């Protein structure tokens, strides 16, 4: 029988528009020290943290293999170190694999990003495209999201008014999340009047530029129960990668997310996802993605995104009570922060946005243009 793996502790910096006074190493160290203080753990292959998994984006960091520049602040000096450059939630998957295999008992996962460092996020995501075919026409993740939003909105009855509602709610929830600072609330009128970026995306539909770091401690069941009295179990993880060229995909179909979710549900033994979750944390980099990913997760009927928002679905389904990505987490950390927030809910540590008695949560991460790659994790407590 494979070993159960638990999340034992969560720490994050505040998420800010511009942490100009900190290097990424400093942000990571802040999270590491917080985690060690919470758990009393040290680094050792004999009972302590036996492996460090970092999450970082080389182009955002402007360094090749940017984890090399920070093994000291990961506690990974002369230790076992691994890097996730894809999407933060994948680090949970790596940690799960390392522990279930029996290779290690305790794993540190620590991600960082300073989106304020490059001149523009769009210049960075532009690099994800092909130099011959798709860079020359100017594609970046914002333009790709515009194409997807255009295709999805028509199919799901999601209009400008719905998107404004999603943003207003996210900004309001963000005021209850102590880790979000300096993000003003907005009115629907302000969202509707904000400039278009790539039709139908508006400036206020896009997740804010943000800097920060997040970390988790994962452990095998026996060790997890020693470290904390409220471990959060990783019940199942699934992911899926869709085609590289946008034209090869049906952008509104949610194909890769449906695959990722089905894999996660099967591994977690969930037959009826519709009412399986007390809390849902999904990576809504742009407002249209909140209803769209809910459809892809099978939690809202396909094509029903607009009606779901009209019916107060986001509140009823307890979606992104942390504020979600629209409250500001870096691209590469979206899914990892979602897992952290979901774990806080299941540990009863979510503060002002705590759902009483939450037992099972879903965390979702996404990377690549127009949702090319998705990861879904199911988390549970005893």
């Amino acid at each position, binding site marked *: 029988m494979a070993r159960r793996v638990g999340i034992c502790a969560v720490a994050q910096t505040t998420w800010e528009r511009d942490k100009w006074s900190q290097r990424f*190493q400093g942000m990571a160290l802040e999270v590491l020290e917080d985690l060690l203080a919470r758990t009393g753990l040290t680094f050792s292959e004999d009972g302590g943290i036996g492996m460090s998994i970092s999450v970082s984006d080389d182009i955002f960091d402007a360094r090749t293999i940017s984890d090399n520049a920070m093994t000291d602040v990961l506690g990974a*000096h*002369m230790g076992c170190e691994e890097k996730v450059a894809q999407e933060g939630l994948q680090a949970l998957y790596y940690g799960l694999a390392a522990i279930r295999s029996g290779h290690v008992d305790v794993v540190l996962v620590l991600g960082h990003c300073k989106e*304020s*460092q490059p001149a523009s996020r769009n210049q960075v995501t532009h690099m994800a495209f092909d130099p011959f075919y798709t860079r020359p026409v100017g594609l970046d993740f914002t333009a790709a999201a515009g194409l997807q939003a255009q295709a999805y909105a028509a199919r799901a009855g999601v209009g400008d008014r719905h998107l404004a509602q999603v943003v207003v709610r996210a900004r309001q929830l963000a005021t209850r999340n102590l880790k979000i600072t300096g993000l003003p609330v907005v009115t629907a009128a302000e969202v509707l009047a904000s400039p278009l970026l790539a039709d139908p995306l508006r400036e206020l539909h896009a997740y804010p530029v943000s800097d920060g770091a997040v970390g988790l401690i994962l452990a095998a069941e026996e060790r997890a129960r020693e470290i904390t009295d409220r471990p959060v179990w990783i019940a199942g993880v699934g992911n899926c990668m869709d085609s590289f060229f946008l034209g090869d995909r049906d952008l509104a179909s949610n194909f890769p997310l449906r695959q990722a979710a089905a894999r996660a549900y099967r591994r977690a033994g969930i037959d009826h996802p519709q009412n399986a979750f007390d809390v849902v944390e999904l990576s809504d980099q742009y407002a249209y993605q909140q209803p769209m990913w809910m459809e892809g997760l099978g939690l809202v009927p396909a094509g029903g995104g607009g009606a779901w928002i009209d019916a107060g679905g986001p509140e009823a389904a307890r979606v992104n009570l942390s504020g979600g990505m629209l409250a500001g987490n870096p691209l590469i950390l979206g899914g990892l922060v979602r897992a952290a927030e979901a774990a806080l809910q299941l540990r009863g540590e979510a503060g002002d946005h705590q759902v009483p008695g939450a037992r099972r949560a879903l965390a979702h991460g996404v990377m690549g243009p127009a949702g090319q790659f998705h990861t879904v994790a199911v988390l549970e407590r005893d």
Partner: protein
Amino acid sequence: MGGPMRQRLITLRQTIAVGQRFATGPVMGRFLMALREKTILAIRCPSCGRLQSPPREICAPCRVRNTEWVEVGPGGEMRMLEYVYYASPDPLSGETRETPYGAVGILLDGCRDEEVFWHLLNPADLDRVRMGIVIGDRVTRGSRLRPVWADARTGSISDIRYFELDEPPAPA
């Protein structure tokens, strides 16, 4: 016709470039601002006493925050020389520097063992310096080097242009 089919192949030369705004943080920032005053700072580990320059937030082997600032150098003994014939492009500009050049590891005055400080060597001194070597009791002294400071200093590692030989010329 015979022989393999020939085909024209296309390559595209392109420099990818993204502007950046790097943060120094408090530790690196203090070190860099000291260079503006022609001072080289190191930071000491409270656990093992090791000095690091440029300073880091923590001592990696001890996994503790460094706590004490110490002024070192500015002169020192050359312990390592990388005589470089092939230069990688500088990721800050995409340009490739002139070769050959020397990268030197200097044991600044006040430092010991592996506590070397890396910088550039004056290209004119490339063939005139010798490395210090310590193998057990066998000690060979390396060349004395001193920093050559830039006139306009901004709080950057380039406030030291390079290190140069700080010894009388060998008798003919």
